[in-house]
């Protein structure tokens, strides 16, 4: 087993190197992130989006709506012992990010979000005017 892979919450040495190459002040945040896996389900009243964000607590989750884009961003904050040396890592970047474009019939002002056990559930309702309705046909 080698010790040259670092565990997720620390930046990997190569990522640090590229960040420093771009900005000598090295204040630039690590631009690498994991694209979380999602399920997107639409029903009559809106869209339900489920995203896997394991290791992200509620206070490290950020949801941003800007115009018609919705961005989900979260940072892994699983506590780890100080002296921990990584042996093997499948999750190498401690950050998740994914952006979605919302369509016009969705109402971003009424998004409901719930984070439980590392799964984010977003409920994006449709505008009232966009909900399907039955049109009565009057007898002539």
């Amino acid at each position, binding site marked *: 087993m080698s010790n040259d892979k670092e565990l997720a919450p620390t930046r990997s040495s190569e990522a640090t190197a590229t960040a420093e190459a771009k900005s000598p002040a090295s204040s630039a945040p690590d631009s690498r992130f994991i694209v979380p896996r999602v*399920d997107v389900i639409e029903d009559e009243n809106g869209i339900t989006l489920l995203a896997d964000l*394991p290791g992200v607590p509620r206070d490290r989750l950020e949801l941003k709506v800007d115009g018609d884009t919705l961005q989900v961003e979260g940072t892994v904050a*699983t506590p*780890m012992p100080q002296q921990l040396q990584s042996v093997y*890592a499948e999750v190498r970047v401690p950050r998740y990010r994914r952006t979605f*474009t919302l369509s016009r019939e969705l109402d971003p002002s009424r998004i409901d979000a719930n984070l439980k056990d590392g799964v984010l559930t977003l409920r994006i309702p449709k505008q009232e005017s966009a909900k399907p309705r039955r049109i009565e046909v009057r007898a002539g």
Partner: protein
Amino acid sequence: MFDSLYNFPDEFERLRQEFDDLFGAVGMPTGIRSVARGAFPAINVGNTPQSLEIYAFAPGVDASKVEVTVDRGVLTLAGERPSALPEGGNRKVNVYSRERVGGTFRRAISLPDDADPSKVEATYSDGVLHISIARREAAQPKRIAVQ
């Protein structure tokens, strides 16, 4: 409307990531129980002088139903994750993305010889299953005073 949630840069990022996953680890020795990328749950392993720390990234799992066993030096994690997708037959529901895995899962990790199977602790929080296995006393680094 159908492609309203389709985001081009993101798909690109995913592709780049998959390439990294495929070619990033060339030349590195892999364990006999290594699995293809994307296996559920993803696992990180680290060690400290006193313990071996295993982090399984298993979101949306009922912690009481996860089975953690240590048998002859192999740690096995097994459990089930319910699928969030609706049952078939409901025509008013459309599913656009189904990337999250559901169903049963099982992963095995071989432990080093100095792992003590009688001292295993497992906790689950924020979708991460953390298993801490103590190392045997004899294997811990000791400072020897020179007379």
